[in-house]
């Protein structure tokens, strides 16, 4: 049976695990009102998506 020849060093292990790190989602700016939002999503503060109003946001 195949057996590891060497102990995995701390550096090698940690370098590998570092790639599993959580990354914050990439955010975009709304083209209409400039608020932050996820891409391909209608804006939650002004209701715009792709240059037109898609939903109405209650004022205040």
């Amino acid at each position, binding site marked *: 049976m195949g057996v590891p020849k060497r102990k995995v060093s701390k550096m090698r292990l940690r370098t590998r695990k570092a790639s599993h790190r959580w990354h914050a989602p990439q955010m975009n700016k709304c083209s209409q009102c400039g608020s932050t*939002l*996820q891409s*391909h*999503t*209608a804006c*939650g503060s*002004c*209701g*715009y*998506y792709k*240059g*037109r*109003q*898609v*939903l*109405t*946001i*209650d*004022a205040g």
Partner: protein
Amino acid sequence: MRHQKKTVKLGRTAEHRKALLANQVCSLIEHQRIKTTLAKAKAVRPLAEKMVTLGKKGSLHARRTALAVLRQQDAVKKLFDDIAPRAAERKGGYTRIIKLGLRKSDAAPVAFIEWVDAPVVVEEPAADEKGKKGKAAKTPAAEAAAAAKPARKTSAKKSGATADADAGAKSE
């Protein structure tokens, strides 16, 4: 193995799923646009578009096939009389899904699903300025289609407003 089995199961049995999707398509036909989870919207889309294809055929057989799936006579009627003729010049892609981000309570991704050819709905007078900008960006065809609906809406609003005024006068 589930290789190439594309059905979106939605955690339901086949009959439950069929009933759910039929109900969603009927709601979509009735309201033109529905808000649901992204997974359901994506599952509804193929069925909704198949129903429009049936509607475009327009034959009695197509009507009965649609009724067998949707199980609601008024929805099938509206599909064949209103929605399918509207999509006559479109070869597929009758629906649009707009993602709305995550729901507060359970962080489920939510989306609108709507007919591409539906008249554009811009509600509420508070958003008037924004609505005008949106209308300017629209294509002429969409604007023509939209022209009929808002007219009816505004008249309805006016009558509603006068009714409110009357009620106010009475209460005073």
